[in-house]
């Protein structure tokens, strides 16, 4: 009897200590998960400066880049907005074209041999050539930027959506046939939900690459946006500005990726609980 009481007391003492320790550990591990990548990036950065021996305008120190970000914030913000809006518009167009084409190709399969080779060809033209042609055709403006981003992005959406629309289980299609469901209903209530996880997977690719492509397009043909800032800064030996802009673009790209993952976990039926 006494023995049991003693063990009982000991256990309760343990649990109260555990109750205190567990959340502290959880917070610590969460902090570490955020801090570690930043620390490792900074560490490698300093290591690169130390080992390469390159001049400051080629590889500036992190604190210098931060200072530039703060000092030039108005100019950078202005160009950042331009890049972001081009990326966003391109992202939306890539999806409209990709999903739209996939729907057409699924409803009218005989068009597939007509459209797919062209889609593959356009996808495989180097963006540099495309950018040059577009700059010649419509000049340095939003239209050419958005077009390049859409062309770079529509293909993964198209391929994934087609695959998703075809991933429908045949027994489900048989069931719909026996229940006399119309083709429209089958498309929207069976095929599209089946395709949803595939479409979302494509967003993770297209979403983050649209920023990268937007910056590249601006670098080549534009007189505005983050890509242009990089171009101009390089001509003025302003490595700190290049790094500042690159850091922002990378952060945005990463942010979009994380956001899309967050959304997909809530939208996609294969992650329902």
């Amino acid at each position, binding site marked *: 009897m006494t023995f049991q009481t003693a063990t009982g007391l000991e256990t309760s003492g343990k649990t109260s200590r555990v109750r205190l320790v567990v959340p502290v550990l959880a917070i610590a591990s969460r902090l570490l998960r955020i801090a570690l990548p930043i620390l490792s990036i900074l560490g490698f950065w300093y290591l690169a400066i130390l080992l390469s021996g390159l001049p400051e305008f080629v590889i500036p120190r992190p604190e210098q880049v931060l200072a530039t970000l703060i000092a030039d914030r108005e100019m950078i913000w202005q160009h950042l907005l331009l890049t972001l809006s081009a990326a966003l518009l391109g992202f939306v167009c890539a999806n409209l074209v990709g999903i739209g084409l996939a729907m057409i190709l699924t409803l009218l399969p005989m068009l597939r041999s007509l459209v797919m080779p062209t889609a593959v060809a356009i996808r495989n033209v180097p963006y540099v050539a495309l950018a040059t042609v577009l700059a010649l055709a419509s000049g340095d403006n939003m239209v050419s930027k958005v077009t390049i981003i859409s062309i770079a992005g529509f293909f993964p959406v198209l391929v994934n959506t087609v695959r998703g629309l075809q991933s429908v*289980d045949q027994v489900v299609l*048989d*069931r719909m046939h*026996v*229940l006399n469901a119309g083709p429209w209903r089958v498309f929207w*209530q069976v095929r599209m939900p089946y395709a949803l996880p595939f479409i979302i997977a494509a967003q993770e690719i297209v979403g983050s690459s649209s920023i990268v492509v937007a910056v590249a397009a601006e670098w080549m043909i534009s007189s505005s946006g983050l890509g242009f800032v990089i171009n101009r800064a390089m001509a003025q030996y302003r490595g700190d500005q290049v790094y500042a802009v690159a850091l922002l673009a990378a952060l945005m790209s990463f942010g979009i990726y994380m956001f899309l993952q967050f959304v997909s976990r809530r939208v996609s039926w294969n992650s329902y609980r």
Partner: protein
Amino acid sequence: MAHGGLEYVLLLDDWTTYPGIPYRQGAFAMSLAIGYRNVSRRFGVTQALASINFEVAAGEFVALVGPSGCGKSTLLRLAADLDQPSTGTVHIGDQPPSEARRQLKIGLVSQRPAVLPWKRAVEDVRVTQRITRRNQFDAAALLADFGLGEHQMKLPRQLSGGMLQRVNFASAIAHDPDVLLMDEPFSALDEMKREELGIWLGETLRRRPKTTLFVTHHIDEAVMLADRVLVFSPAPGRIIADIAVETPRPRRADFRADPKFVELTARIRHLLFDTPFQVMTA
């Protein structure tokens, strides 16, 4: 003849329309008969089915057994309007399958559950009802009736194989079709679950009678559940025997120990496994 008991075994040439078992008629005025007349089906050069003639009377339960690839599933697909015969006709009531399908008279239970992976059990049953615009059954009550009361808000991947097949069945009959076409519905389940669901199906059909065509490769299951068992030859599939199981349905689990059950399953086994040898020595 190597085996007696011709009262059970009717060769194809002696084909007759079975009247069904008398005590069931009348109770099933709403059910429809299914008929196959001179049906054959050819896929390219492969003859899958050769001159099939039989009738499933209204309210009757007919099981089709035969080796893999003998065309028994094709036969079912013909009745479901999922495939067309190369020659001959299929009818449900007095209509072709396409018309019966349009009038929502067909319920199809597939081997793999035809449920939508993003729909919870009760929602999946409602999908059938929404598409067919028939909701005389309450979906939740139907599932509760099938022993799934506490599982009706689960997603397909949260359900076991046996439970999933019950949801599949509920979704297949939620519009109250007249005929039920079942294609190896329990073949993905283990032996115990299969027997349990067989008993459950028998009981369910007693309460909601339907003309049933049941494809299986399990001889025991066929004899346990059916009024008649049609035995098929290897491809091209032909009916080599039409065996009546006269014990009233639904049968209890102990029917498996009944001498009649033992005799019938032994006879079907003999027909299925000895047939090629008879052909060779003939």
